[in-house]
């Protein structure tokens, strides 16, 4: 029986910044539809870079990134039709919500990814997600006037309103209040959406996903629960700066 085609696949991916600093080295990762991956690693190990590659924002310096079996390279990234389809299917929540907000009002911000929809459906979805993420009182306010937590809720609303196939989240719970964290965990659990979540909050790991991937300080994958057949042990977490002991 042949192995199904992964939705997201990295093959021997390496990324080096212009200043020569290595962000990722020799990363192999295949993520299948419906998988919920939690990405762990210390600061600066390359989690955000990995998410950006998966979102087609940074091309790997070496190796290949494939989405649904198709290689994503500079040529693909210039194809507007492909971009449109990809951007509807894969979304990324940035670590700092300020980066993501560029529309005059909260209503415009949520509706930004829905411009292809008929006006009535668009308006209904905006109201739905504003209601779900408790933003209904700010619909006509400028996004940059919101608090940190409200901005993060708004970013979530913007991305979830698109109804993507793949959700890439970079430290999504950093600014959220416990109520919204609880809601997000439940929402992720109830859906079969493919997700890759980078986090430092070890207590949330079991609820964020079933598959755990650890990036080492050497910028490569040092542990993958899929191939290891179980969760990482305490010594491995300590060795990679993810636990104290």
């Amino acid at each position: 029986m042949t192995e199904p085609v992964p939705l997201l696949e990295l093959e021997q991916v390496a990324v080096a910044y212009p200043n020569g600093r290595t962000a990722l080295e020799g990363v192999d990762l295949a993520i299948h539809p419906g998988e919920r991956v939690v990405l762990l690693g210390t600061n600066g190990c390359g989690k955000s870079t990995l998410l950006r590659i998966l979102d087609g924002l940074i091309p790997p310096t070496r190796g290949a990134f494939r989405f649904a079996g198709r290689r994503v390279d500079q040529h693909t990234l210039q194809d507007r039709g492909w971009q449109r389809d990809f951007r509807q299917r894969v979304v990324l929540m940035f670590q700092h919500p300020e980066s993501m907000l560029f529309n005059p009002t909260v209503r415009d911000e949520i509706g930004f990814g829905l411009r292809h929809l008929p006006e009535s459906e668009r308006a209904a979805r905006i109201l739905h997600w504003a209601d779900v993420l408790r933003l209904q009182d700010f619909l006509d306010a400028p996004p940059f006037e919101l608090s940190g937590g409200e901005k993060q809720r708004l970013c979530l609303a913007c991305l979830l309103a698109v109804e993507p196939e793949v959700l890439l989240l970079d430290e999504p719970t950093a600014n959220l209040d416990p109520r919204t964290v609880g809601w997000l965990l439940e929402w992720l659990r109830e859906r079969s959406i493919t997700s890759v979540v980078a986090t430092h909050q070890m207590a949330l790991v079991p609820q964020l996903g079933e598959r755990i991937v650890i990036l080492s300080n050497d910028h490569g994958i040092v542990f993958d629960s899929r191939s290891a057949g179980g969760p990482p042990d305490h010594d491995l977490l300590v060795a990679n700066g993810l636990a104290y002991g």
Partner: protein
Amino acid sequence: MPSSHPLRFAFYLAAVITVTLIHDPRMLLLVLAGLLLLSGTGRPALLLRAGRPVLWILLLLSSGILVMGWLTGQPVLHALLLINLRVLVLALLTAWMLRDVDLDLALARLPRVRRWLVIVRGQIQLFRRLAQDYRCAQKSRTVVAPTMHQRYLGSAAIGLAALDKGVHNAEMVTQAMRSRGALHD
């Protein structure tokens, strides 16, 4: 002055271009007087708002022109009046635009430009907060008043950090816009 915001903004843009094409100080003086006349109530406040940010620049430029005139023996009155009046008129126009033009309304028909405007506003707010945080942190961490040299080094470090943050922010915003499909409409 035009009544609708898009018209006011168009007037502002046209006026800025026109002012840069005028090379006669007497004409610029007339424009300045006309602008003050048309700017309505709150004229002194507007003049203060326009003059304050450019005062030191004008003093520095004027000193430079005077020194050059003294060294070369050339008459400098024309250049002196031209540069001072032009900068003042441009500053007054901009102060008027900031006071009387609602840019959201002015750019309502240009959603892409409006998006850039939102980004600029967001970044201004971010840097304002950053500057405020730096000031507070400095105050909080100062046990003994810093020397001029330390102040200079501190300011240079803050300037570099702000520049670095600006470049980083620009990269992040561009990536986020691309990620959300804003760059391939």
